[in-house]
Every structure is written in structure tokens, then in C-alpha cells.
């Protein structure tokens, strides 16, 4: 009997050996393979729950990770004053990761502690067992201006306000409505995330892009900053060149006509100087000039301002489009910011900023500094010249023409008692039958010593309401920022 017991024992030990073998296969030999299976949510959970570095504005966190107790994720991403910064920061969801637009995704590597410059932090953490802390990102935004922009835009409108320091490219305010509470999408519950996302999308909030930099729309007459540049650069036009100003022209190879804006002052003069035409934003002389100059010179001017090129600031900025035209008719329409020409609010702001800065376009920047968890500076973007758009004399001419827009033209609502404002307005048809327009204004001040560029855009707004809002709000922003 005892021998049988011993044999049974040996067989049982053999069974155990098979268990050890299987465990070592699973836990050691094939563990990487199993770990990287797409159905394995553990690595995702570990990454999603890891602490992310804060995003700060003047040292105050607007996004930070706090330890989370009752969740499988270690940390909860919390957004302070989310409605003010939602489009700039984007959100970080444990379900879907960082939202595609915004700092959260643009600097995901730094914020999550996985960038190359944080390599040694990670090695150290490996040995000390500490959690790698992500980098801290300080934005260029001015919280007071951002708040002011937020308060300006009516809640029922799709509006964007951008303020940049045109001397450095620093973005001081970048606000779009409708905004939303990013915390609703940073929730750890999958069902809550789903519900909130669907509700916000139903409300018409753009969760996956920032209107200010990712949504190119028809710029309308504000695009005349480009056409005017092309005209001046050609040498055939001066600000005081007299031009024909018919109330409408027939477009070649087409049965369409291109009229001047009926409600404006253009009808007063059948012939006028370029600066007057520019101030009143008459269409026909620009269309004629564009057809005369040809597509190439217009495109050259547009690309000098940055059209047709995407960039990172470090959030992704979509390219504004000035595509090749197929006919003179299309070129004529393009010259006044219609047809197939588009611009993001930021692109239009860059055009004004380049003129204000004497023709030198500074690269817009949203990030002031990136610091490691030990507060050591990882990156500190210096002001960077994006392009020499035009020489200084041309810039001065355009500057003067833009002052005319405010002092005697369509931009009169932006006229300040404190300093001279230079601006260009635009009202674009949207190519649909809603009867609404894109209403633009972009400009800078003080005109004799330009410091800040401001752009205000409303998309899909009634004609009267749009022009009413844009000019006044630009003035408010300029007076607030220059008062500083």
C-alpha cells in the first residue's frame, strides 16, 4: 500500500510540474505577446491611469491629474475652468486617450512623461519605483483675456476670438464657442463618457477639433489683405491708384455676375482710389485686378502669409486653402475670399499680424515653457520668424489702408479713442441657403506701434448681428490687452 501511495505522490508531483511549466510559459516566456494583445486592457489601463503633468496658465493649473480612489485608474484628469480652455487643452479620456486637437494630444509624450527628453527620468523611476511624473506645460494664454473673450461671445453663436502678440507670435487668447466642460469627458466610467460625448455632439460642440485652428472657412473680404498685397507687390498699384468701381462685373466664361456689396458705400463712387475701395470693401476692383495679375501672384501672396501650409504651434493647425483655380471666374471670386478659398481664424490673424509687424510674420506659439517634473526646462520656444511676408514699406502701406477701414470704412465700430486701430472686415457667403454669413474682422493696434493682433469671427450668423459683434469685440479685446 505504501508503495502505491508513493507512486500516487509522484504522479501528483508530475501534475504540479505541468502547472509550473504552464505558468512559466504564460508569465515569463509569452508574457510580452499576451501583454500586447489588443484585447488586453491592462496596459491601456495603466497608461490611462498614469499621472499626467499639469497644463498651466500663469502658473495656475487648468488641467491636472489627481489621485483617484475608487477607480481602477490611478489618477483622474481634472480641468479647472474647463469652459474657458476646452478647445485649447482638449481632454484626456481613459477610454479614448487624448482628444485629437489640443495640447493634451499635441504634447502627449511630454505630459505623459514619455518624451525623449524625459528618458532619464524614466530610467530613474524604474529603479526607485516611483511613478514617472509628466512634464508641466505653461501656456502663453492670458487668463484675464481668455475670460474676457469667453464673456464676449454670446452663448448661442459660433464665434471665435484670437489675440496674439504680433511681435513674438505668443497667443494671448484663443476662445471659441460653443465650449464645453472637458471634465465630462475625462470621467472614468465608460457609459458616462459615452452619454456625455453623444449629448455634447448633439449640442453641436466640436470635440475633435479646435475651430480657431482646425476649421478653415470662407474668409470673404478679409481675404483682400492677400489680394491687396499681391496688387502692391506687382508694382502696378499704389494705395492711391484710381480704379474703376462698377457696381457689378460679368464673370468671364460664366453667366454669373460679381456685385459690390449693395448695402455699403461702394455705390457712391464709380471710380475711386485703392485705399478708399479697400476701406469700403468694394468687390469689383479687386476681382478685376486679380484677373489682371493672374493666379500665380495671388497664390504667391497667400502662401507668403502661410496659406496652403499646415503647422504645429504645437497644436496642429490645418492649412488654409488657396487652391489652383480653373477659370478667371473662380479666380475673381477667390480674390474676395469666396469660391474655394478658405482660412482658419488663426491664419487670418497671422495676415494682420504680419502687416502689423512690418511685414515679418512671427510663428504663432501656444506654449511658453515645458518643464520636467523637477521643474527643469525641457523646452522653451523662442520667438521664431515664420516668414518675411513683405518689405516694410509695403507693410506700412497696408497698415495705413487698414487704418482707413476703421476710420472711414466698414470697420468703424472698432474705432478707439485711445489709439489708432487697423483692421479689415469680411462678410462671406457660406454657399448654402441658410441666409447666414461668416462675419470677420481682423486687425491690430496701435497702428503707429503695433503690438497685438486680434481676430473675431462668427460663423453662420445673421448679417447685421455679425458686423455688430465683430468690430466692437475686437475693440474691447484691443483696449483690454493694450491697457496692460
Amino acid at each position, binding site marked *: *500500500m*505504501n*508503495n*502505491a*501511495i*508513493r*507512486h*500516487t*505522490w509522484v504522479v*501528483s*508531483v508530475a*501534475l*504540479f510540474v*505541468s*502547472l*509550473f511549466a*504552464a*505558468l*512559466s510559459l*504564460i*508569465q*515569463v516566456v*509569452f*508574457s*510580452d*505577446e*499576451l*501583454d500586447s*494583445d489588443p*484585447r*488586453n*486592457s*491592462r*496596459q491601456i*489601463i*495603466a497608461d490611462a491611469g498614469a499621472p499626467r503633468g499639469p497644463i498651466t496658465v500663469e502658473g495656475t493649473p487648468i488641467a491636472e491629474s489627481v489621485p483617484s480612489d*475608487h*477607480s*481602477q485608474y490611478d489618477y483622474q484628469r481634472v480641468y479647472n475652468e474647463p469652459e474657458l480652455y476646452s478647445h485649447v487643452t482638449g481632454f484626456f479620456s481613459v477610454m479614448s486617450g487624448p482628444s485629437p486637437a489640443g495640447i493634451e494630444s499635441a504634447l502627449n509624450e511630454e505630459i505623459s512623461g514619455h518624451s525623449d527628453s524625459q528618458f532619464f527620468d524614466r530610467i530613474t523611476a524604474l529603479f526607485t519605483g516611483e511613478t514617472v511624473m509628466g512634464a508641466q506645460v505653461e501656456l502663453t494664454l492670458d487668463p484675464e483675456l481668455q475670460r474676457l473673450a469667453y464673456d464676449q461671445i454670446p452663448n448661442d453663436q459660433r464665434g471665435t476670438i484670437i489675440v496674439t502678440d504680433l511681435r513674438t507670435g505668443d497667443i494671448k487668447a484663443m476662445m471659441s464657442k460653443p465650449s464645453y466642460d472637458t471634465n465630462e469627458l475625462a470621467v472614468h466610467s465608460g457609459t458616462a463618457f459615452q452619454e456625455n460625448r453623444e449629448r455634447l455632439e448633439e449640442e453641436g460642440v466640436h470635440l475633435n477639433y479646435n475651430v480657431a485652428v482646425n476649421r478653415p472657412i470662407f474668409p470673404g473680404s478679409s481675404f483682400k489683405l492677400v489680394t491687396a498685397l499681391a496688387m502692391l507687390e506687382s508694382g502696378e498699384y499704389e494705395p492711391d491708384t484710381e480704379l474703376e468701381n462698377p457696381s457689378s462685373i460679368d464673370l468671364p466664361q460664366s453667366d454669373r455676375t460679381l456685385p459690390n456689396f449693395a448695402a455699403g458705400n461702394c455705390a457712391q463712387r464709380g471710380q475711386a482710389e485703392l485705399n478708399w475701395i479697400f476701406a469700403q470693401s468694394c468687390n469689383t476692383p479687386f476681382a478685376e485686378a486679380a484677373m489682371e495679375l493672374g493666379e500665380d501672384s495671388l497664390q504667391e501672396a497667400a502662401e507668403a502669409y502661410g496659406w496652403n501650409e499646415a503647422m504645429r504651434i504645437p497644436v496642429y493647425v490645418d492649412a488654409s486653402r488657396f487652391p489652383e483655380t480653373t477659370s478667371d471666374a473662380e479666380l475673381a471670386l477667390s480674390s474676395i475670399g469666396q469660391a474655394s478659398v478658405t482660412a482658419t481664424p488663426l491664419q487670418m490673424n497671422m495676415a494682420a499680424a504680419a502687416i502689423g509687424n512690418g511685414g515679418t510674420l512671427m510663428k504663432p506659439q501656444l506654449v511658453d515653457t515645458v518643464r520636467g517634473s523637477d521643474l527643469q526646462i525641457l523646452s522653451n520656444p523662442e520667438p521664431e520668424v515664420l516668414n518675411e511676408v513683405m518689405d516694410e514699406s509695403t507693410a506700412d502701406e497696408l497698415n495705413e489702408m487698414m487704418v482707413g477701414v476703421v476710420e472711414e470704412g466698414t470697420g468703424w465700430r472698432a474705432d478707439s479713442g485711445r489709439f489708432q486701430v487697423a483692421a479689415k472686415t469680411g462678410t462671406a457667403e457660406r454657399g448654402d441657403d441658410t441666409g447666414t454669413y461668416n462675419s470677420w474682422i481682423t486687425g491690430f493696434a496701435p497702428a503707429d506701434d503695433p503690438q497685438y493682433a486680434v481676430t473675431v469671427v462668427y460663423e453662420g450668423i445673421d448679417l447685421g448681428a455679425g458686423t455688430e459683434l465683430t468690430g466692437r469685440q475686437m475693440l474691447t479685446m484691443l483696449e483690454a490687452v493694450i491697457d496692460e
Partner: protein
Amino acid sequence: MKSQDHDAHPKPRRNIELLLLLIALTIGIGAQVLVGLNLEDTIDQRYWTEGGVQVALALAFHIALRLRAKYADPFILPIVVTLNGLGIAMIHRLDFTNQYDGVADRQLMWTAVSMVAAIALLVLLRDHRRLRQLTYISLAVSVLLLFLPIVPGLGQDIQGAQVWVTIGGMSFQPGELAKITLGIFFAGFLANNRDLILLAGRKVGPLTFPRLQDLGPLFLAWLIALGVLIVQNDLGNALMFFGLFVAVIYVATSRISWVAIGVAFVAVGAVLAYQFVWHARNRFDIWLHPFDDEIYDQLYGSHQLVQGLFGLAHGGLTGTGLGSGSPQIVALANSDMIIVAFGEELGFLGLSAMLVLYLILFSRYMRAGLGTRDHFGKLLAVGLAMVLVLQVFVVVGGITRVIPMSGLVSPFLAAGGSALLANWLIVAIVLLISHAARRPIVVGPMLNTTGEGASGTEDPLRGRNTGEQDPVNESQGSATAPALKEGESFRE
């Protein structure tokens, strides 16, 4: 395993047990405190109260052994206390997730109930041989226990297996206790009829087949267990009972041919289950193709198994540390799949150490069987050891894809009162057997005290029980007088 306890003066070794017990409590309660430190800010009063309860229970058990079974194996109790403490720690850790709440308290309560019941059994039973009187009562009780869950109104279907009984809101798995009663029946029956089975019978080729009437009750028991388990869809327990059956019959007869017969029975059972039980076929498919998307996504599919493998893999060699993994992703993380939770948070090294503990515990059970002098004791110890080793093998083997997965729980670790109680009662019985194995025998001058023919063993030819030759010792002298009326009357 070769050495036997024939020392002139066996030592009780209770002090070693006490020392090991302190280490065991340190590990178990330490793990619970570690969980608290990792997942809570402060270690509050609760930890000390619960730790105190465990210390008190372990010491009470230890004292009961000192008083009633002082030659009992000194390693069994510390190992079981370690495993039980680690189980509570992991269940407590899983209570911090959204899926579970308050399970650790319930487990501690069940631990207390189980240990008190085990102590009571130890004290009241005094000698394992008295269980031999219950051979046929055990069979009846086993049938009753196994049939209870399919009695309308009592039974409850959980996770496709109908093994639960609910009385007054309390759920219980009576089948767990059948592990003990079937073990007693197999051991008692084979101890009584071993000689007949060995001697009578027809020889066919190399195999000697027993007369049907000798094997009848055994076959009946096997059939009932099979039938009930197929009806209940409880494959894990079916596998365990088959294993128990084969192992005990092999040890009783020492004939490999019996293993062949037993394996044939198991094979027939497996084929029948595969043919007629969807549940079994499903488990088989899951075993072979767990990563197949279709099987992964289906209801009752391989999701749980695959997520368990991910958990183990995530733990890697050293584990994430207690409280730092995500074991709650796996369904039933604190009961059927608690091994995965340990594998994830303690890693291959931690889990292997725990398996080694099981292996040592199993070896001590077998050691008790080797050492004891009566056939019933040997067979019972081996049977109960097989219950332990098969539970571990079926659970861990199922999780690691060595065999198809089936619903058994890891002994002493998993949340669940019924299994805990059953396994603790087994501990009490094996401790008594080991006590009988190691206690010094006071013998008369005429008797041979060593070898198979020593006092206290059965008469091999007549299959008589050990009652009359009961070894004498100071505290145990007149304790037992097993009659075994049933066993004997059956043979006539």
C-alpha cells in the same frame, strides 16, 4: 518519503508548529496590512481587530492540537493558515474595486466558522477510525448532498452550474462537503473489501476483474456522482471525484490495472459528457481555441480564460505588487479566478511559492497516510490528499490551459464558505490521522513493532478492522472501539 517514523521517542513537535504558525500569521496578516497601506491612507482599527481574530483562531487550533492530538503533523496548520490569510488579503484587495464589496469580512467570518468547526471535529472525533463506522452512512449523505441542489425550490443555477442551495437567503454548495463523505465511503469500503477485490475474481489476460457484487457499491457511487454532476453541469467536481476514485482504488489494490480501469471509466465519462452536455463541449472548445474571436465573444465564451491569461502575463516574473494590478478585469476574480489575481500581483515567483505550499501540504497529507498503520486511515488520508491536489490541479490547470477549465475553487484561497468549511474539516481529519501515525505505541512484549505486521494494522487475510489491536497510549487508551457492523454484514 522513504523514512518512516519508527523513532524510539517521537517528539510532538508542537513548538515547531507554534513557530511556523507565527510566521504564517505574519505572512497572512502582513499581506492584509500591505493591501491596506497600498490602497488606503491609514491602517485603521479594523485591520488590528481582524488580524487579532485570525491570531486567536490559529492559537486556539494550536492549543486544541496540543491537548488532543499532540503528535499531529506540525506543518499542516501553518501552511493552511498562510494560504487562508493570503486568500483573505486578496479578497480584501478586490473589495477595493467596484466589482466587489464586503467579501473579505464574509470570508473572515467563514474562516472563523470553519476553524471552529474543524476544532470541534478534532476534539469530538478524537480518532479518525471512528469514521469507518460511517462508511455507508457517508454514501447516503453524499447522495443527499449531491442531489440537494437539483431539488426544486432549494437549488439555484449560478454560472451555468447548478450546485447551490439557498436556505433562508444563505447560499451553500453542499457538494463541497460530499468531497469528505465520498472520501470516507471510498476509504471505508475499500478497506473492508480490499482482500475480496484482490483475491476473488476472474483473471482475463493480465488483468484480474473483480466479481460484480464486490465492486457494485463502488460502481454505484461513481455512477451517482457522474449522473448528478452531469445534471448539475459541475465538471470540476466530477473530475475531482473521478480522480479521487481512481487514486483510492489504486492505493487500495496497488495494481496498475485498476488505474487502467479507472482511467477507462473517466474516459467514458468524458466522452459521454462531451456528447451530451453542451456545457462540457463548450469548455472543450474554449480550451482548444481560446483566442479565436468567435469563441472569445460568445456568451459563456473564452473571455474569462483569456483575460485570466492576460492577468497572469501582466504579472510577469515578479508581479505588480499587491493593490497595483487590475485583477478585477477577470470575472470571478475573488473566487474561481483568484489564482489569476495572485499571479498578476505577486507574479510567477509569488504564485509558484503558493503552489509549492500546496505541494508541501499535499505531501504532508500523503505522509500521514504513509505513516498511519490502519488501511482505512491510509486510504482516507490519500483520498483527502487527492481531493486537495485535484482541486489545485483542476483550478490552476484550467486557468493555465493545461486542461479544460471548470468551476472549482482554490482550496483556502477563494471566497466561498462551503469550500472553506469542507477543506478545514479535511485538515482536522488529516491532523488526526497524522497524530495516529506518529504517536508512540505502547505494545505488549509479544508483538512485533515494526513493519507491515505491526500492531495496529489490519490482518491482511481476513480484512479485520483495527479495533481490537488499537494501539494504547496514555491519553488515548480507551478511546475507540470501532465496530464496523455494516461493512461486515455486507460481506456475508
